[in-house]
């Protein structure tokens, strides 16, 4: 110390680096992991938890797992971990259900085109966005003919639909159709016209008051009574209608929240400009209300997408339904965990992706009005 004092004039000594314990990784750990006795206990507990869960999980899922085998017993004779063979052997079924194997290219093509169709809707910085959007709006028609057949393509019964393809068909149709219906319901609920208001409120509250599964039961057991005798009504179509109406009621409530958050001045200014009701809503109010409602809308979509699994209870063969039939096969009995984990990963990736996109969209539309 005396040396350094000699070398520098008083007051001109360069700053010493902070002590080892208050910089770098050690400082970070002291602040974030061991700042107090409680925190230390929590950290140690967490480390123990990770130690108990993670290594066996990795061991089960990757190190000791078998991908290539013909049956459960063959799997278990090779290694004690997960038997992914059940997934790889039944992969086609889990993806397409009982869709005829020779025609599966049509499903693949539909989903490739789907990716192409949603791109200009999701991202606005793509080149040639306008002509591209025309394709996007024509896509549902193309998809219908590709999936169900017609126009020279071989007809496929919707009872053959299954697996993740069914999940996507129900989920995406629900998402696409429920949004406009939800907007109309929300406008109806906020309308000055008493009759429209009462009808919207009753519809929304009824749908939101009962579980989706009971509505699906209504679709599968009661709808036959409501239609003229002898009418045949595709089960998948009934499910699509119910799922869409269900999501629409929830979306209506989310958008109503957005509408209520718009200051009255916006409505009054629009009316003072002489805009008609639809122009006022379409140009002034809804763009602002929708922006506020994005998180709620995406959450509803995620909910709808997850709820597509309920169709297994009325007998459609979504991935969970196929799981039950695969598990009934004596070759693959007892491998429920592997199948459930596989399906869970699929849902996690798509739902997590949707919620990330909603965060991206919120940030993009953030126009800096926040104080």
């Amino acid at each position, binding site marked *: 110390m005396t040396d350094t004092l000699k070398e520098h004039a008083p007051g001109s000594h360069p700053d010493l680096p902070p002590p080892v314990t208050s910089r770098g990784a050690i400082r970070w750990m002291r602040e974030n992991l061991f700042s107090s006795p409680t925190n230390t206990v929590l950290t140690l507990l967490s480390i123990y*938890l990770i130690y108990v869960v993670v290594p066996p999980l990795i061991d089960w899922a990757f190190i000791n797992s078998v991908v290539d085998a013909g049956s459960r017993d063959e799997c278990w004779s090779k290694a004690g971990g997960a038997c992914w063979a059940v997934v790889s052997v039944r992969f086609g079924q889990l993806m397409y259900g009982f869709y005829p194997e020779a025609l599966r290219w049509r499903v693949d093509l539909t989903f490739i085109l789907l990716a192409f169709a949603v791109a200009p809707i999701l991202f606005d910085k793509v080149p040639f966005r306008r002509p591209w959007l025309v394709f996007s709006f024509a896509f549902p028609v193309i998809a219908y003919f590709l999936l169900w057949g017609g126009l020279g393509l071989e007809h496929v019964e919707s009872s053959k639909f299954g697996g993740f393809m069914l999940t996507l068909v129900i989920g995406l149709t629900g998402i696409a159709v429920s949004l406009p219906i939800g907007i109309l319901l929300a406008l109806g609920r906020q309308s000055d016209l008493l009759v429209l208001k009462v*009808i919207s409120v009753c519809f929304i509250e009824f749908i939101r008051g009962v579980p989706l599964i009971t509505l699906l039961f209504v679709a599968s057991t009661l709808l036959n*009574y409501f239609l003229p005798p002898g009418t045949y009504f595709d089960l998948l179509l009934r499910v699509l209608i119910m799922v869409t109406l269900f999501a629409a009621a929830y979306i209506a409530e989310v958008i109503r929240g957005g509408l209520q958050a718009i200051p009255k001045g916006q409505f009054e200014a629009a009316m003072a400009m002489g805009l008609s009701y639809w122009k006022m809503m379409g140009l002034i109010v809804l763009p602002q209300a929708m922006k506020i409602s994005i998180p709620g809308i995406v959450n509803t979509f995620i909910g709808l997408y*997850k709820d597509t699994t309920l169709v297994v209870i009325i007998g459609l063969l979504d991935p969970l339904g196929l799981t039950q039939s695969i598990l009934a096969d004596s070759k693959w009995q007892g491998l429920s965990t592997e199948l459930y984990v596989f399906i869970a990963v699929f*849902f*996690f990736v798509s739902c997590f992706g949707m919620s990330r996109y909603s965060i991206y969209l919120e940030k993009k539309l953030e126009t800096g009005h926040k104080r």
Partner: protein
Amino acid sequence: MSAIEFERPSFKLEDLWTDRRWRGIGIQVIAIGALFAFLAYIVNNTINNLHLLGIETGYGFLSEPSNYDINQHLIEYSSRSTHARAALVGILNTLLIAVTGVFAATLIGFAAGVLRLSRNWLISRIMYIYVEVTRNVPVLLQILFWHALVVHSLPRPKQALEPLPGTFLSNRGFVIPSFEFNEGSWVILAAFVVAIIVAIAFARHARKVQDATGKIYPVISINLAIIVGLPILAHFAAGQPVGLEWPALKGFNFRGGLVVTPEFLALWFALSVYTAAFIAEIVRAGIQAVSHGQTEAAYALGLRPNWTMRLIILPQALRVIIPPLISEYLNLTKNSSLAIAVGYMDIVATIGGISLNQTGRALESMSIVLSLYLLFSLLISSVMNWYNKRVALVER
């Protein structure tokens, strides 16, 4: 200043689409007409269909014997009981899963929400992973997963796990000792009622003392001691009328004790963990919604951190937390209808499932199920509205 008189023009046919008021009336008349035409169409079709199929209608089947068994019934029930009784068993089972699920989900959810905001990086990451994984996987999948785990992975009753002495976890469910109420048990019930009255009186007294002198009693812990302690004292004073029935292994299964079925266990656990993830996010958002200035002001006044949380932050956060929390409770109740996937006998599985299939009375059964759920929702949302009115900020 003279008033300008507008002469109101008489109604012309084109006013129906050019004049705002007339157009409104026109639209409403059309809407009513369309609605009634739609309803008449449906009712007419239904009557025709029922007539063609020769199905009788009416709720008379409710008093007929049900002819099926229900493995978990909170009230006396056998296959000779009526369909109405089966429905009641179903309702009670739904309520049981709803109440226990709400309780567990609230505990886990609040803990996870607070830990998610912890300064401890590790624990907040773990909670983040828990919340994201559970929220993004369908709850039906989770129910089936846990059910399969209980039924296939837990040992048989003979090799049952014994997490606590006297409790057994096996693939037949979770068996715990049950209470046995012998003669004289009413003393304990009476003691419990008295304890609650005393507790309320004490809470009021403590409030008065605090208002008058500023002295704060530990009301919660003292009241807890009273409510738990008094019945226990009464139990010993009355010569131990309440006994415990211990489960014992007899043959291939357990006899005695209270059996929590694997279906209930899987459903309860999955629903609680799933709903708790949503509650955790609600709690986190609620706490973050309270401005940091409130914490700083409380510290400046010399409040200690835990008092700041209890007296300043939480009351304000609760105003944000409670409405979405209650709608999560409602969601849990509605999700409990997924019970049918694992064979837990709730409303949907009893009256809307087996009774419907046995009697063929689809219209009647589904109308009962739907109106029961609507009743639950209306009850819960009226509670929510009442609370919202009570805690709403009173502004100018």
